[in-house]
């Protein structure tokens, strides 16, 4: 079994590595690249703790061969913040105490971000439905749902502001 060269983007950085065919993405991230935010929970696709984005879609890194990410774009929990500025979903989770032991949190946050991209204004039912593959053993689901709802509200407000801003800008331009 020989190592195979792969190239990919990880949190906006280009990477080149050599991997064995049976290396899993989760272990490449955690053991070789020291990005330990991605968690190993069950290893069989039940818990969602190992969720990462491949080309902007949430997938499970414990069931993804490292060789298969050649040419793809990977984003992990570590890649969400811009410098010291956290992602709005991270802020919402902190604000609503949606973190207990924290083990499921990276997967929860990534899945929640994907949810709001697909459905910017989800109902509580829709949130529960979409998040069903992410398990929290502390059972802190109430706060997690609250945080996601709040983040959606915040984002929609922001979008409204943006629209109002652009209307105001447009009017000003017209006045000029």
């Amino acid at each position, binding site marked *: 079994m020989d190592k*195979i060269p792969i190239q990919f983007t990880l949190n906006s950085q280009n990477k080149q590595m050599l991997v064995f065919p049976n*290396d899993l993405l989760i272990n490449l991230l955690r053991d070789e690249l020291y990005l330990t935010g991605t968690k190993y929970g069950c290893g069989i696709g039940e818990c969602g703790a190992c969720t990462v984005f491949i080309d902007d879609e949430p997938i499970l890194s414990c069931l993804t061969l490292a060789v298969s990410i050649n040419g793809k774009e990977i984003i992990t929990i570590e890649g969400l913040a811009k410098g010291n500025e956290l992602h709005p979903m991270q802020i919402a989770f902190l604000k609503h105490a949606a973190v207990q032991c924290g083990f499921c949190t990276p997967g929860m946050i990534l899945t929640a971000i994907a949810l709001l991209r697909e459905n910017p204004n989800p109902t509580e039912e829709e949130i529960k439905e979409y998040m069903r593959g992410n398990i929290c053993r502390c059972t802190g689901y109430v706060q997690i749902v609250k945080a996601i709802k709040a983040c959606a509200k915040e984002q929609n407000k922001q979008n409204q502001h943006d629209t109002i801003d652009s209307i105001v800008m447009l009017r000003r331009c017209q006045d000029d």
Partner: protein
Amino acid sequence: MQTNTKILAKKFGYLSPDTLQEALTLLDVHKKNHLKILAGGTDLLVKMKTTDLNVDYLMSIKNIKELDYLDTDKGLKIGAITTLSHIIKEKKVKTDYTALFEGIHSMAAPAIRNMGTIAGNLGNASPAADTIPPLMVLGAKVKLQSKQGERTVFVEDFTTGVGKTVMEPDELISEIIIPEISKTSSSAFLKKSRVKADLSKINCAVYLERRSNVCQDCRIAFGSVATTVIRARKTEELLKGKVINVDVIHQAAIEASQEIKPIDDIRSTADYRLAMAGIMLRDAIELAWSRAVKGKRSKKSG
């Protein structure tokens, strides 16, 4: 057996063809070796981690772009690597192939659906597969290709046992073909599982064609009640040409629970499955029946 699911301990060669032709050549070259086709990996890699399944080669087909499509022109044609997420986002799947939409939607979670494919679900040939009962009642076919040529097989004839199919070692599922359905027809899928995202204890799909109060044609399939997904043909015969009312549905439910012969296993018991089969069939028929009316109305008014 002690299992460590953090790693994949088995060793194998990795093949990743970029074209269908290349893939078929590789299958031909390696037909004497133990080669497994890897699509989403959500079943195969779990099996490799947790059972004694060993392979010489894994051939990933995820880079074969020509197999990533959803053609809604006449009926529905689904390429082998089209993800489950992609399929349920297509409007026609929800409106015309409702049972398939519900089957996929009931499967696991978004992350798994972003990885998994319908061809993989078929190839895995689990009797609890949630796409097989809908595909069966919708009259779907599987296109199998090899270097020697191609053939199409009804989904109904495709699986032969737990994890067993009619596929030859040098064949590959390239496409799933579902025929256009008639305007007066509708379908429904129901499943019972421990929690929503879990595997089915029992599942059931119903397809029927309705003319006012009469059921003109009907197909019923049950999963997790035998070594493969099965059709309930006697029950279908009982419903065909009948005026559908509470009594007929009740009779059908009794017939169905006599027709299937489930077993006890880790997910459920034979008794529970028998008790549920009739109830699920009743609910599925009622659901599909009411949809057939709605479908007709909306088409008239539209």
